Structure formats: structure tokens, C-alpha cells
């Protein structure tokens, strides 16, 4: 049999031929190309750990020209322990909303919002309130299992109607000095989507 003959025969003639690197290099270029094109994904603010709630009327709308969009991630119970349920994350900063009487996270959150407010363009409120509103959409990307109070409290902090240190109505704020964010988007998905 051919197989048996081969085994008994002398060294294979090709045994010392150099390894052909061409296909390997081909593949490596493919991988390189892939990472160059897709590397941005990791910079995305939309973390995979959040499962947003399902709705039917949601749409994918384009932001108006000149508007900014900031994503506020709020964690639910999906991930293994960290960050814990109800933590709030903007960019790389995490704020805790630990319990019903701990507002430390909201003070820090308000600080971030104040800075954001200064950086974006403003427009006059179409209602006669004399408020200067920022051209910025805040997208609340809350997990389906985030506690409802956290979403409410974030909205209150956004509207600048409460003092984040006490969560009581803010004193000494006039419409002219309020730094309210009022354009809110809630992130969601269609119920049938995977």
C-alpha cells in the first residue's frame, strides 16, 4: 500500500522547505484591517451590560443640527456585581445612587451637568419662562431593572429644580439662573428585537 511504503521510505523531499508565509500574512492583514475599522466600538458609550426596556412607539430620530447628545447610563441587575444596581455612568465617570437617603452621587452628577451646560449653545425657552435652555439632548439609557426612583431623581437633577444635596426644592434659583436640561430621551428597543 502506498501509505505503508511512504512510512518506510527515506525522509520526505520537502521536509526542509521553508514555511510558506503568504497565506498567514494575508490573514494578518485581514485582521489588521478589521481592527482598524472596528476599533472605535470600544469607545462607544453604550455599554453592553444594560438591557433597555421594550416599547412600541419608539423611533430612531436624527438630532437637530448643532445639538449635542449625552448618554446617561443607569445600571440594572444584569451584571455580576459591578457596577452595582442603580449606579449612574456618564462617559467614564460613575455615580452611585446607593439608597433612599444617600445623595452623594447626585451632587457629583449636578457638577458634571453644570460644566456641560456651560459648554453648549443655548436657546430661549419657547414658553415665556425666560429660561436659557441648552441645545443638548440627555439620553437616559436606564436598564429595565433600574429602580424607578433613580430615573425620577435624575430627571429632577436635570431640571435643576431640586438641590442635589437634600433633594428638596432648590432655593434661590430664578428661571434666569437655572441650568435646566429639559430635552430627555429614554433609550428603549422594540419588544421583538433580539
Amino acid at each position: 500500500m502506498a501509505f505503508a511504503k511512504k512510512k518506510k521510505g527515506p525522509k520526505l523531499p520537502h521536509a526542509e522547505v521553508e514555511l510558506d508565509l503568504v497565506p498567514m500574512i494575508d490573514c494578518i492583514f485581514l485582521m489588521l484591517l478589521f481592527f482598524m475599522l472596528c476599533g472605535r466600538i470600544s469607545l462607544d458609550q453604550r455599554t453592553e451590560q444594560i438591557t433597555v426596556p421594550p416599547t412600541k412607539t419608539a423611533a430612531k430620530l436624527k438630532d437637530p443640527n448643532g445639538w449635542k447628545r449625552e448618554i446617561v447610563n443607569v445600571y440594572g441587575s444584569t451584571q455580576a456585581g459591578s457596577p452595582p444596581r442603580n449606579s449612574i455612568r456618564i462617559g467614564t465617570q460613575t455615580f452611585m445612587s446607593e439608597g433612599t437617603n444617600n445623595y452623594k452621587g447626585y451632587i457629583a452628577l449636578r457638577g458634571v451637568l453644570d460644566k456641560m451646560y456651560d459648554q453648549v449653545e443655548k436657546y430661549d425657552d419657547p414658553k415665556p419662562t425666560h429660561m436659557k435652555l441648552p441645545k443638548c439632548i440627555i439620553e437616559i439609557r436606564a436598564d429595565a431593572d433600574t429602580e424607578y426612583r433613580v430615573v425620577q431623581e435624575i430627571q429632577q437633577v436635570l431640571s435643576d429644580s431640586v438641590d442635589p444635596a437634600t433633594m428638596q426644592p432648590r432655593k434661590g434659583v430664578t428661571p434666569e439662573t437655572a441650568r435646566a436640561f429639559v430635552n430627555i430621551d429614554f433609550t428603549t428597543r422594540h419588544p421583538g428585537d433580539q
Partner: protein
Amino acid sequence: MASSSEDVGEGKLDLVPMIDCIMLLLLFFILTTKFSTEEKTITSLLPTDKGQAAASASKVEPPQSINICIYPAGMDKGHEPSEYQAQLDAMRAGGANTVIPKAWLRIGSQDPIEINGDKLRQKGGEQINTEVDMIHAYIFKQLEGFEIAGDRKAQNPVIINCFSGLSWKYALVSYDAVRAYEAEKSGKKYTGDPKQFDEAREVDFAPPRIRDYSAKELGEELFEIVHMK
């Protein structure tokens, strides 16, 4: 010489390194690929003309508003705040971060419907669709009963009162159902123009109770929501 006379031209291409690479690529993709859901958004505009009133929950809701009440399943009417507190504590026996699995949703004096929270978390499949459809059908039916003459703006505002310790999904799905009802009634889809909010019926998430927040007051809050008209 022996090496030069060798017929390499007809030798087969060595596929081994290519296969190695392809296996590596395959492994890499299998390990790293996550199918992310396409995300959409629901828009809302916080009121600017209500001033501090927007944050003050001590005000009594005007009686003509339609309240959607959402609270943990199993909480019947007619108990003391302390009893609701005890019920809540039992549900959270596993720790303060325990997700309450089921909720009741009620409008007006009707019997509540039960919502299974796990089903609302699923991705794809039959169950999540039937659960969302059930909530929509209930809210459509109830709101139909509160219709009054006039355009959409003239309708009584809808306030979503969700217990603060429940999951966010219940409040958002209810909000979605009211919007779907309004879209059907007005025949207009939301186009992203904030002016549309001026012509639409008012739909609000009830502001949280102003309190020196403490876990003890949750019983009071539950009592209010369970008995809300």
C-alpha cells in the same frame, strides 16, 4: 542538482498556516461577538413652566387627572402603611437590591392587571410581545373610558404613579402605551419636533414624594399608590 530538478510547481499549496489563522480568527469572533440590540429612543420634554411645583409632590393631584398606578403585585387595598412596609420587606428579604418580580397596574377603580417583570426583560420571542400587548390593550381600554369632548390637548392629563422601588420598565412601558393610544387617536406620529408636545395631551411621570427619604416612608408611599383614585 536534485533540488533544482524537483517539480515544486505542481506541489499543493500548503494550507496549514492559513487554516491556523482562520481558526484563530474564528475563535476570536466566537468569543468576542455580542449581538447588540438596535436601540431607539422615546422623547420627553421636562416642563419648564411649572417652576418649583414640578418638584413638589406635597401638592394634591388635581382630581381630574387620570392616574396609572403601578405597585408590587399582591398589595391589596385596605391595609395600614406599616403592613405594606412589611410586605415590601418580605419581598426584599434577599437584600435591598432585590428586583421585585411582579407588578400590578391599575387605572381608576378597576381591578389591576398583573405584569410579569421577567417577561419584559426577554430579548425576542413570543412572551415579551404578548406581555407588552396585554399592557397596551388594558391601557387603551381604560383610557377610552375617560375620553371627553375636544381635541387631544383638552383630554385630562395622564399621570404615571409608579412605586419608587419597582423597576423602571413598568413605568416606561405604560408611558409607551399612553403614547401609542394618543398616536392612534390623533393620527399623528411623533416626528422629533418639540412643538408637538404643545398640541398633545399631557403625560407625566409623577414626581417622587418629597421627603427626607428613608426606607420607613416606603410603606406610606405604597399606601398612597395602592389607594390612589
